[in-house]
């Protein structure tokens, strides 16, 4: 009896350990190893691997293409997140109204989430190809355009970073990530007590006021963690850009994760690729730190 009481003291630790060990083994060690590699000139084709300090970083940051890729990545992340969230919140609010068929629609809207990325990329490439796209045929049938749109091949760039292929890649990405956000919002919405709306109705608040004064404030804390994680995931998103366009045409849709991949796996420059991934880490750490700091403080008070 006494022994088990003694053991019981360590229960919280025992519960924590397996997951922590797993994360250390799968996430932390390999990442620290990457950081280490970023200070060495590691190239598979060269036998010696000298320490070069910040050499890889200097090279990466002095390449004019790097800034372009960073801007691409931020554009991709922010727009995927904002428009994905807007679509998700509109759909979630509508689904939460209790109209007929909501289970049916909910089931449909979840479908992109369970579609493997390889399938997503292949079918969207077909949907957006100039010659075989039903969208082009439709637009031409209703005489909106006189020649097929070249969705993934238009190389005009506006404001230095907006191009049609990038917009298409973002749309594909929104297609595949919005179900997750929708589910999150839907769950959050169901926690808002309906009395709040009733009271607002009595006070004569408009729909928009209800949305900004009740829905958003009650929703945000609930979905904060998921939105932050979604943002991080999108910043690190490799699948869509790599599978749909391989970063093309003319590197217009190249994002940092794809650059890391091609430096490491096709150019065999592991050190240089590692430096790129540390740069990614630093960029995404900035907004995350704020959240981490706050979440620690919040836990204290809880």
């Amino acid at each position: 009896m006494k022994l088990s009481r003694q053991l019981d003291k360590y229960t919280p630790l025992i519960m924590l350990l397996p997951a922590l060990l797993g994360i250390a083994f799968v996430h932390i060690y390999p990442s620290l190893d990457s950081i280490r590699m970023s200070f060495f000139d590691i190239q598979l084709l060269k036998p010696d691997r000298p320490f070069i300090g910040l050499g890889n970083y200097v090279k990466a940051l002095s390449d004019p293409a790097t800034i372009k890729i960073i801007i691409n990545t931020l554009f991709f992340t922010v727009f995927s997140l904002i428009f994905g969230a807007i679509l998700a919140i509109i759909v979630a609010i509508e689904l939460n109204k209790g109209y007929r068929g909501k289970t049916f629609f909910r089931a449909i809207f979840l479908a992109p989430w369970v579609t493997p990325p390889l399938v997503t990329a292949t079918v969207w490439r077909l949907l957006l190809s100039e010659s075989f796209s039903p969208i082009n045929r439709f637009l031409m049938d209703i005489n909106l355009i006189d020649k097929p749109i070249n969705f993934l091949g238009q190389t005009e760039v506006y404001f230095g970073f907006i191009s049609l292929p990038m917009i298409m890649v973002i749309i594909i990405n929104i297609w595949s990530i919005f179900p997750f956000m929708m589910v999150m919002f839907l769950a959050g919405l169901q926690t808002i007590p309906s009395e709040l709306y009733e009271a607002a109705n009595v006070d004569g608040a408009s729909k928009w006021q209800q949305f900004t004064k009740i829905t958003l404030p009650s929703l945000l804390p609930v979905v904060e963690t998921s939105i932050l994680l979604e943002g991080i995931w999108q910043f690190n998103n490799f699948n869509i850009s790599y599978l749909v366009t391989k970063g093309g045409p003319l590197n217009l849709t190249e994002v940092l994760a794809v650059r890391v991949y091609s430096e490491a796996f096709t150019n065999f420059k592991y050190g240089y690729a590692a430096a790129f991934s540390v740069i990614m880490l630093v960029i995404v750490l900035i907004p995350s730190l704020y959240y981490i700091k706050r979440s620690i403080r919040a836990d204290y008070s809880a």
Partner: protein
Amino acid sequence: MSSKKIKPALKHYAVMAVTSVFVLLPFYWMVITSIKPSNEVMLSPPTYFPKVLNIQNYIDVWSTLPLLKYMSNSLFVSVMTTIICVALATLCGYSISRFSNRRLQKSSVVLMLLSQLIPGVLPFISFYFIMFNLNLTNTYAGLIIAYSMWGIPFCTLMIKSYFTSAIPVSLEESATIDGCTRFGIFFRIALPISLPGIVATAIFSFILAWNEFMWASVILSNNDLKPASIGIYDYIGQFGGNSNMALTMTTSVLITLPAIILFAFLQKYLISGLTAGAVKG
């Protein structure tokens, strides 16, 4: 009915219709391409709907690819991933939520978040060699371990918020007085109440494992273990082009449809589980 009621309903169904078109267009095109007769697939502009129905592609794909094998591999790996991920995440999340003022628990939350910041492509190499040295390449275990660990941070954070909000501490305190150990409380009180939250987390980890393809294609060279998420590679040729569009789309339909149907049934739990958990961030 007054116009006051009709207008919102119209708006509602308009939103549903537009979103459905956006969501379903790729699936529609996938199915349509797969049932087009072969002389119609490569027409430009394409036809919206085939003139004759053709199921030959399905017969071809079914007879050439071991799709059932791929599916059962995927299913096995995903189910195992889900079980391990959920088991570990539940324990960890519970510990974090109940003992949130301890230093270790607090730093665990930070660790979980940090682990998500690290770009996924590069640690691959170091991780590959760990797994290789443990003789885990070319095994189901190599996939399952990787996927469950990848899923743990998010699952833990979700379950943590669930425990924090769904289970009154007073309930546990009374159990402590009754002489239950902490494990006892966890199993007898916390776990049963939080089952919906666990189901929701389970679905997340399941989808994660179901969709993953990079890791699987790197560590597997034994085709008997191949999951469905990379099955479509069988029809993609040397130059990255789609050497046979109709068969690629047929394979896509065959590997996506079962998952979609499964989730159409599971989503009820997903939403209710999340709802209960999401009371407090």
